[in-house]
């Protein structure tokens, strides 16, 4: 019902995911589950050192082929399973060492998105890692997995990147939309960020129509006991928000999930996607 689910796959960001998840689980007083997904791709032929293009068939070719392919898959799956097990054991030790009370682990077959959708009823927060090179390579290199997960699931997603010391200063990316009002409301009610400094930042021109909702957000957080300040930064959110983050040493960005239609995202990309890819600090994506 209330698990924090941390998805690990052994890539470079795994320690960051582990630390972020441990921090969130302790804050939420929730059990932490590490999830490793074994995603076999049978639609892809296994690359072989000596490919067989002899194009002939003889007695028992079909049976032999079935046995060979089956044995190959079995061997790879066993290896992947064992590697996954070792990875899970190491992150569990790391999380326990940092003081999380209940740590579990799960291995599932299938794609990450379908697995998370299946686990959604028993989960409260998903923690994922962003591939470290995704930001540098720019728009052409898409780390689709993270975006697909964010599109598909309803629960909040915490995307870890870089190192993840316990955040102390968060910022909410605010655009005045009803969705962003809900995000402020959610942050105010949740124990996850209680006691942190939490700024509300809006990108755009400094006008009364922007000031008014921003002031509401600031007041709402102040009532909830946050030490908070509101700011309007000029320019496009894709560039001005990261600058604000760096300037104020903010170590957690909170924002809404995709607001645009799938078609628009395909063509122009969304602010969420760009920020996810360029943010130097962990991002908490809320619905």
């Amino acid at each position, binding site marked *: 019902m209330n698990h924090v689910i941390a998805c690990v796959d052994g890539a470079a960001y795994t320690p960051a995911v582990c630390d972020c998840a441990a921090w969130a689980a302790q804050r939420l007083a929730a059990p932490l589950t590490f999830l490793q997904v074994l995603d076999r791709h049978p639609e892809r*032929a296994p690359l072989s050192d000596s490919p067989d293009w002899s194009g002939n068939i003889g007695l028992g070719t079909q049976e032999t082929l079935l046995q060979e392919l089956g044995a190959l898959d079995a061997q790879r799956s066993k290896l992947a399973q064992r590697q996954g097990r070792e990875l899970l054991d190491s992150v569990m030790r790391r999380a326990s060492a940092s003081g999380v009370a209940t740590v579990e682990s799960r291995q599932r077959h299938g794609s990450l998105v379908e697995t998370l959708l299946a686990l959604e009823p028993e989960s409260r927060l998903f923690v994922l890692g962003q591939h470290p090179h995704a930001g540098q390579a720019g728009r052409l290199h898409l780390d689709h997995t993270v975006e697909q997960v964010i599109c598909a699931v309803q629960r909040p997603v915490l995307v870890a990147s870089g190192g993840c010391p316990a955040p102390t200063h968060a910022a909410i990316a605010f655009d005045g939309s009803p969705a962003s009002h809900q995000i402020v409301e959610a942050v105010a009610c949740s124990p996850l960020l209680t006691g942190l400094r939490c700024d509300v930042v809006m990108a755009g021109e400094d006008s009364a129509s922007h000031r008014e909702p921003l002031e509401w957000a600031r007041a709402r957080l102040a009532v909830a006991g946050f030490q908070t300040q509101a700011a309007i930064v000029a320019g496009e959110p894709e560039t001005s928000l990261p600058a604000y983050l760096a300037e104020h040493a903010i170590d957690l960005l909170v924002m809404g999930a995709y607001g645009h239609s799938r078609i628009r995202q395909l063509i122009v990309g969304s602010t969420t996607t760009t920020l996810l890819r360029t943010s130097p600090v962990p991002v908490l994506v809320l619905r």
Partner: protein
Amino acid sequence: MHYTSSFRQDWLSNIRGDLLAGTVVALALIPEAIAFSIIAGVDPKIGLYASFCIAVVIAFTGGRPGMISAATGAMALVMVTLVKTHGLQYLLAATLLTGVFQIVAGWLRLGVLMRFVSRSVVTGFVNALAILIFMAQLPELTNVSWVVYAMVAAGLGIIYLFPLLTRAVPSPLVCIVVLTGVAMALKLDIHTVGDMGQLPDRLPVFLLPDVPLNLDTLRIITPYALTLAVVGLLESMMTASIVDELTDTASNKSRECAGQGIANIASGLLGGMAGCAMIGQSVINVKSGGRGRLSTLTAGVFLLVLVVFLGEWVRQIPMAALVAVMVMVSIGTFSWESLKNLRKHPPSSSIVMLATVVVVVATHDLAKGVFVGVLLSGLFFAHKVARVLRVDSESADDGKCRAYRVTGQVFFASADTFTASFDFKEVIERVHIDVSRAHFWDITAVNALDKVVMKFRREGATVEVTGLSEASATLVDQFALHDKPDAVERLMDH
């Protein structure tokens, strides 16, 4: 998102493997398409156009990525008489009608009927197919000079031994190139592909079959089209499940049925014969690393390019080289395992397999063989289940009363055994029949119970039957599984 991701998965997930495997398959398809045209009694170009067309269309419309469809021996064998008696145009018309039938079959989801085709029937089907393909080569091997035998033997040698040297080049291609070279260099006087009829010299063009549009035409082509549709779907479904098993992925059977239909209609309109999925080529495709739709598309396109531009060379290929390739196909299609299993498997399944083979080889009609096989396996199954029936009894009340207890399956095949299990000669006052642990599957079973009760009454006994409502729950055709998830448990529990 679902559509784009399945598109990526079907087309783009295995590009390199698909392109290479498609090329290997195209090279192997050419001799087969020519050979099957000759079996059907039409010009080689009919089979080559068909193979191109079916492979390309099925790449988009099929339900089993990575499966190869083209002109096949199974279909060619069905159309022999039609071509002989009415000519090519009627074959093209029958091809169109076959496509229509197959689309309807896909629409009605008839692919699920494949579950009634048991493993033994499938084995019988492929063995019969292998035997028929081999037998179709015999005309090229009788009343010919020793040169032809030597060529065929050399061809088979190259096909099976060349891979020991390198597996980077398709050995059937090497066989064809070498034998063609030898035949041309030595100016051997043997049959070549050019002697067998026209080869394609340009891209296929759209044309409607030149047949009178009347009921007579329909009467001529319908039986053939029906058989073609059934045989095509049977082989396609079997091949699909083989590819499913080899690649450990699922296929969409209904989409495959309709896809075969669309491919056949396209083939008929471009002057090709009807075709279906090919077991041998699909295995070769998977073996060469093909998995996605791109492999099928590559095979079709590359085949046409080769044939149109190399037509002059294709003409020179000696028939002996084709025979060698076809012997390889028939050897590869035959299930060697099944011979070893003849002794190991229960006799009933071996009989089903052999009956399928015998009927196909005798009638040259794969549909008839499968029909006999399915019928026999159904009968054997009924016979086996009918043995799961026991009637116990015990006497009570100083022999004045007897309690019968029926356990097991009562239906048409076991009704007689059921009736014979009661002792009507015994003189008793009261009979108690407990059927709560039996299943009455049909009206025959209920009828048999009625008869037993009547007979006891006529002998002067009072009859009491208990548990009938539980026993006859199985009579209902629909168990309404959707609203009672435990219906099956409840049914089998009592």
